[in-house]
Structure formats: C-alpha cells, structure tokens
C-alpha cells in the first residue's frame, strides 16, 4: 500500500523551477532514498512535504487521501516527521526537556519526567537510547540525531524524512542509525532518506528516486541497480564541455602542503594528513561533497584557522599558523564561501567593501587615516572592469545581488599579482552569465601565472577549469589526477566515498 504519493509537484523561486513535475511514491514499510547532487531540488521537495513551502502545482496524497499541508503542524498531524540536517535542539536543556518542549498533551508540572518515561519506551522498542537527564550540549551528534528522531516519533510520526542524516555521524553511529531505521520500517513505518552518498543508498534503501535539476531523472529498485547506474542518472551523462583552458606548462611550485591536519569546529580532525602542491599557472580542482573538510582546508590555507599539524609553504616560505594578513602579504587571496556571510559587510559601501582586505595598506590608509578618494577610485575601476551593478561606489554592498557581490569580491581578491587564489564554491548560486564571468576571470588569473585552488561541489566546473583534479572525502584527497579523460561517473563515485571499479 502506498503510504505517500507526490504527483506533479512544482515549485519556483523567482521564476526558476526548483522542482518541476516531480512524482514520488513511498510504500508502507519502505525506505525510499532521494538521491541527487546539490541543487537538484531534494531539500525543496522535502520542505514542501513538511509544509514549509507551498507547491505551485501538484498534489500530495497520504494513505491514498489528498492532503493539504500548509504548515509543519499539518504535516505532524498527518504523521510526517522530519529530522533536519541541522538539529533544532536547545543546548542548555536536557534531552527530556527538549522532547517535552512544544509538545501538546504534556503535563503542566514536571513535563520532563513524563518525557523521560516516553523516552524509555522508545529506547526499548527501537534501541533509540538517549539519557533523558543529559544536557544536549554534552551529547554527540549521533545522540542529538537520536533525540530528533525521538521528538518526531513522540509526535506520532509514521513517515520520517531524514535530510542528509549521516553527514554528521561517524561510521559506527551511521550503522546504529541504519539498524534503528530498519527496526522502524519492520513495524510498518516509512522513511525518506535524502543523501548523495551512493554506498548508503545501496546498503539501506529499498527504492531510489534520483533528482537532477529539479526533475526526476529516474527511479529504481535498489536490488536491481548499481552505483554506476545511479551516478549516471545523477550527472545526466551530458558530455563534458570542451575545456576552454589553453594548454600551458605550469611554472614553479607556489603552494606545498604536507601532513596538514586541521580540526573542525567540534574539535575532531576535519582535514587529516593532507599533502599536495599547486604550481604557478595551474588550477587544482578539489571536488567533493560539502562537509568533507573543504572549508577547514580553505581556512587553514588562508590563515583563518590554525592547523593542528603540518606544513603550508607559499613559494617556499613556511606559513602554517600565520594569520590571514601575513598570508595575504605572501600573495594568498581568498574568494570565500557563503559570500554575504564572509565576503562583504552589507552595511558598508561598495567602495569600502572593495578594499575590505586592503583598507589598512597604502594607498587606502596612511598613518591611520583612510583615503576616501583612493577607495572610491578603486571601486570605480572594479565596477568598470567587472561590470558591477548598480555602478555606484556609495551603494550599500548588502543591496547588491549575489552575482554582483561575487564580482566585487573576485575583483578585490584577483587584483594585482596574486600568488595563490583559494576560491571556494565561487559560482554557487550564481546565474549562468555571472558563473561564466567568474570562471573566465579565474582562468585569466591562471594564465597570468597565479596558482588556483578551486574548491567546488560542481563537478562540471571542476572538470572545466582544473589542470588536476582531487576528490576530497572525509578530510583526505582520495586521488589527485591529471584532468585528461576523467570519467565523471567515476569521480561521482569517489565523491560519494566509493571505490572506483
């Protein structure tokens, strides 16, 4: 029997369809995997199902009956529960208090005692064990996730949506999670499992739906498919665009990294024992799914995060542990991820943002005084060279579109003769025109002799721009290869942590 059916779901954002005619069905007792690259529309679809977005077209059927899901409340009433990638827990409260919070029907006095009793039931039934009196900030990511599952179950969820559930888990924790999910589905519950890790899909799911660019690229029964077939569906097997890169012999080594270990925010190593080099006039593309240590690598290379161990040499000078100004002085430039968060100060003007990383140096600053005219001239030249709209140095940077903000950042960082450009997801979220522009500028800098470390999830981008390609997975490079005749499917397998055949 069909537990859930989605028919022809469509959702647009600003005229761009994120979901376009999506059909999906989940049978009772089934684990259905939803597979796709970033930007394929998986999260949008699940947010529609959970009532966070309203679809522009299409219908949702739960247990065969049409369902109007206008808010998460409706979804919960229909027995749909969601565990987000980012946990929605209150760190200072105990596990039981978090379970009781916002729950209807809890006793007014000491609700956490009642919640603790219910938690015991779930522990016995599914092996979902979390100490009720433990404060959440002391729990591991795996335990917090179990707590989120308990929260969903206690609200009567019979269909669980898990968004990238293993991204924060250790292997052992992931195994535990899978065991719990199997026990639940054995009792007739259903699970939608969002991921881009092929290995997990093959291990856990019964049925697979692959999304690509907002559409269903294909469906398969897990027993009858292979990781290779799924990788083809995810990437769409379009021919790789001919490399626009001019062939040129790379110059001397600019960046040499050895034994680099960098801790993530949680204190565990996000980058482990990494070794690689990038030469002048060369683009090293680092492909991989976000969260495999790319951010920490970029921060360590640009001086924003102090490495635990290892060496970073810039043109022969040891730079590990130096701050970002010292690295900048060595010629390191940084096009950061999450532009509005890291790259600009929205309340400051375009002119001020145009010198955000150089405001303290002449000609913009002399003896502690800023030179507004110089800043303005700089901004005007960037606006002219990079076609930034609106063409006003006085505009607040926060009012610019994403593409224009990126042009501003790229112009600022690529200016002069950088030795190394660390570009992180440089075209994420940009429209086609801006994307092309940014890529061309990076290749231009390569031609001028800069070493470029390109960190991107966009495989097509990595293949188009890079001289060599590395795949990053769980803090390591699985492979560094010359970008000649690389097979996208194989790279996709590597990105998902699989071994090439």
């Amino acid at each position: 029997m069909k537990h859930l059916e989605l028919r022809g779901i469509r959702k647009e954002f600003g005229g761009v369809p994120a979901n376009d005619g999506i059909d999906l069905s989940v049978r009772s007792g089934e684990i259905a995997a939803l597979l796709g690259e970033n930007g394929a529309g998986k999260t949008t679809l699940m947010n529609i199902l959970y009532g966070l977005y309203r679809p522009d077209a299409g219908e949702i059927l739960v247990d065969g009956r049409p369902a109007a899901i206008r808010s998460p409340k409706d979804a919960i009433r229909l027995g749909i529960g969601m565990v987000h990638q980012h946990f929605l827990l209150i760190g200072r409260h105990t596990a039981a208090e978090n379970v009781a919070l916002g729950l209807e029907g809890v006793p007014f006095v000491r609700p956490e005692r009642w919640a603790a009793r219910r938690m015991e039931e779930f522990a016995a039934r599914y092996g979902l064990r979390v100490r009720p009196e433990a404060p959440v900030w002391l729990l591991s990511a795996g335990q917090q996730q179990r707590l989120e599952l308990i929260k969903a179950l206690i609200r009567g969820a019979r269909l669980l949506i898990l968004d990238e559930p293993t991204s924060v888990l250790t292997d052992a924790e992931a195994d535990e999670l899978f065991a719990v999910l199997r026990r639940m589905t054995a009792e007739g519950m259903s699970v939608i499992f969002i991921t881009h890790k092929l290995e997990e899909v093959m291990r856990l799911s019964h049925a697979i739906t692959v999304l690509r660019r907002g559409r269903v690229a294909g469906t398969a029964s897990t027993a009858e498919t292979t990781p290779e077939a799924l990788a083809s569906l995810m990437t769409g097997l379009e021919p790789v665009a001919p490399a626009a890169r001019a062939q040129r012999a790379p110059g001397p080594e600019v960046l040499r990294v050895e034994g680099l270990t960098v801790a993530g925010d949680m204190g565990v190593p996000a980058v482990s024992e990494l070794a690689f080099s990038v030469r002048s006039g060369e683009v090293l593309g680092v492909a991989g799914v976000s969260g495999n240590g790319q951010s920490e690598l970029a921060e360590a290379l640009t001086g924003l995060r102090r490495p635990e161990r290892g060496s970073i040499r810039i043109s022969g000078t040891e730079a590990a542990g130096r701050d970002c100004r010292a690295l900048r002085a060595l010629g390191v430039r940084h096009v950061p991820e999450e532009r509005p968060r890291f790259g600009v100060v929205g309340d400051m003007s375009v002119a001020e943002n145009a010198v955000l990383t150089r405001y303290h140096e002449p000609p913009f600053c002399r003896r502690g005084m800023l030179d507004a005219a110089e800043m303005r001239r700089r901004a005007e030249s960037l606006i002219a060279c990079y076609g930034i709209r609106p063409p006003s140095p006085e505009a607040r940077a926060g009012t610019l579109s994403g593409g224009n903000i990126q042009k501003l950042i790229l112009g600022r960082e690529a200016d002069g003769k950088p030795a190394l450009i660390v570009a992180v997801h440089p075209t994420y979220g940009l429209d086609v025109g801006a994307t092309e522009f940014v890529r061309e500028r990076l290749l231009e800098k390569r031609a001028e002799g800069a070493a470029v470390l390109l960190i991107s999830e966009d495989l097509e981008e990595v293949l188009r721009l890079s001289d060599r390609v590395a795949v990053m997975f769980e803090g390591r490079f699985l492979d560094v290869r010359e970008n000649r005749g690389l097979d996208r499917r194989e790279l996709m397998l590597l990105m998902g942590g699989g071994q090439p055949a």
Partner: protein
Amino acid sequence: MTARSTLGALAVGLLLGSFSLGVMGADPLQALSSIFLGSFASAYGFGETVTKAIPLMLAGTGLALAFRGRLWNIGAEGQLLAGAVAATGAALSLKDLLPGFLMVPALFAAGAAGGAAWGLLAGWLKTRFQVNEVIGSLMLNYIAAEAVQYLIYGPWKGATQFGFPYTDNFCAAATLPVIAGTRVHAPTLAVALAAAGGAFWALRRMRFGFEVRALGGNPEAARYAGIDPARTALILMALSGGLAGLAGAGEAAGIHHHLTYPWAVSSGYGYSAIIVAWVAGLNPLLVVPSALFLGGILVGGDAIQTSMGLPASAISLFNGILLLSLMGGEFFARRRPQRSPSPLAGEGRDGGPGHK
C-alpha cells in the same frame, strides 16, 4: 535603524511614558508639557539641561562607538565614577606641584585614564576569560560606586568638610569655570562637543573606525578581512571608558569641586547615556541633540517632581519606557522586511555549500 523609525519609536515611547505618568495620577499632557517647558523654555531650565547634557554627551559618544562595534558596554556609570576618582586624586595630589594653567588638562587626562582603565578591566575580562561584557561592565559599576564610598568615608575624607563624607575641595586652579548664571562648566562642554565630532570623524575616516564598523556590521567578514576582534574590543572599551571618565572629571571639577557620594557624582548618567546613544542611532554627531533631549527630560523630571508631586522614580520609569520603545523599534525595523514562510525554510535551494 533609520531616522524615521527612531522618531516613530521615540513618539511611541513618549506616549507610553506619559501614559504611565497618567497612571500615577498626573495629567499626562500637562506632565509632558511641564517636562519640556521646565527644561527648554526658561534660561535657567535650559542652563540646567545643558549642564546635565554634558556628561550624557561624553558617555553617550563613548557608548555609541562601543555599540557600533557590537560591544555592549553597560559600564559607563562605573567608568564615569572611576574618572571622577582619578581626577580627584590628581586635583588633590598635584595642587602644589603643577602650574595653574596645567591643572585642568591634567584633571581631564587623569579622568580619561581612570575611565579607560575601568573600561579596559571589563574588556580584559571579556577577551581573556570570555566574561560577557554586559555582565562584566555592569558589575564593575557597583564596585566603582562602593570604592567611591570607601574613599570619601575613609582615606580621602576631607579635613575641612565638617565631618561630611566629601574630599577636601579642589583648589581654584582645579575648578572649572562656568558660564555666568548657570552651572554649565564650559571646558567640559567644549571637550564633549569635540569628542562627539571627533568620534563621528574617526568612524568615517580613520582606519580604526573602519575596523569598528566592519566588526559591528559583520564580525565574520571582519575576521576574514584580518581585523583582530579582541584588540578592537580592548581599544573600544578604553575609548568608551575614557570618554565616560572625562564626564566624571567634569562632574567632580565642574559641579561638586570635590568627590562626593557616588549617586551625587553621577545620578545615573552612565545608564541614561545608553538611551542617549540609541536615540542618536549610534551616530556620535546626533549624540549632541540626543543628550540635550535626555538632559531635558532629567531636568523636567525634577520639575514635575516639585510641581506635580510625582515621585522621583516616575522619571526613571519614563526613561525606561523610552529605552524599551527604542529597542523594540529597532527590533521591528530589522524584522519587517523579511517574509519567509519559516526560519527553517532556508534559501529555496538544496543544501548547498556551507550547509554542513
């Protein structure tokens, strides 16, 4: 926060504030008008208003700077007292050592240093031990007040004050001249106006001001730009504390001519300065009119106490309501433009980079 929303919040605050006076049995309209007539309509009243605006301007300018850098210094009261103590120490110990014309500059220097040191203490607690600066600076206010009491009852108690807990009076050279017929101590007023102008200019034109604005606007981008948040926080605490300390020096040397009870030295200027900074939209130039406005309310508050028989706390309540409406106005001004279905809804695309 835009000028319009500030004015709107101010109007709401005045309305609610006068309503609260109404609850206490006064005619709200009459109360409002006597507040402002009392403080702005007569030469005497206006003189008093300016007198009270001087410390508000200095402390308010310092707080506007700190708040611009997202540094929530609530300790201007204690920093003002520390400045008064340091200025008093200088006045009493240097009276026979310095030529008269150097006395006033020395007092101000000592006041600024005292306030800066008190501010730095909170800054050091924050940057070294991660003590939230709101808590640290607030608690230091109480310590400063107790220290003043200790000094005036203890080691600094004046031999010539007939047993009153004051220090000896400052010598003539250490006493600030006033504008005839008022209590307006002109040198402090000049320093206050210069400080407001200087702070405005520094925010826009100096490297340090750029760093403060970047840090206040987007701490993560500031870090990316290589700005050291701890260093900036320490400098800001020293600056805002130093400006409050100047206010303390002015009160000691311009009004009392000795160190006296902490509540007499300051009467809550350090707290009122928080309102001054917010009414000014954290713009140091606008701190000047904003301090006059708040000074007027304080003077008017005294006026309605006597003329309408309202308790002294009525005007504190009034001020508190004003600050709350300004904070509330800020909150709503920030929130209104965003219309997403839910904070969980994200950006309308799949997970994506950075969504680890």
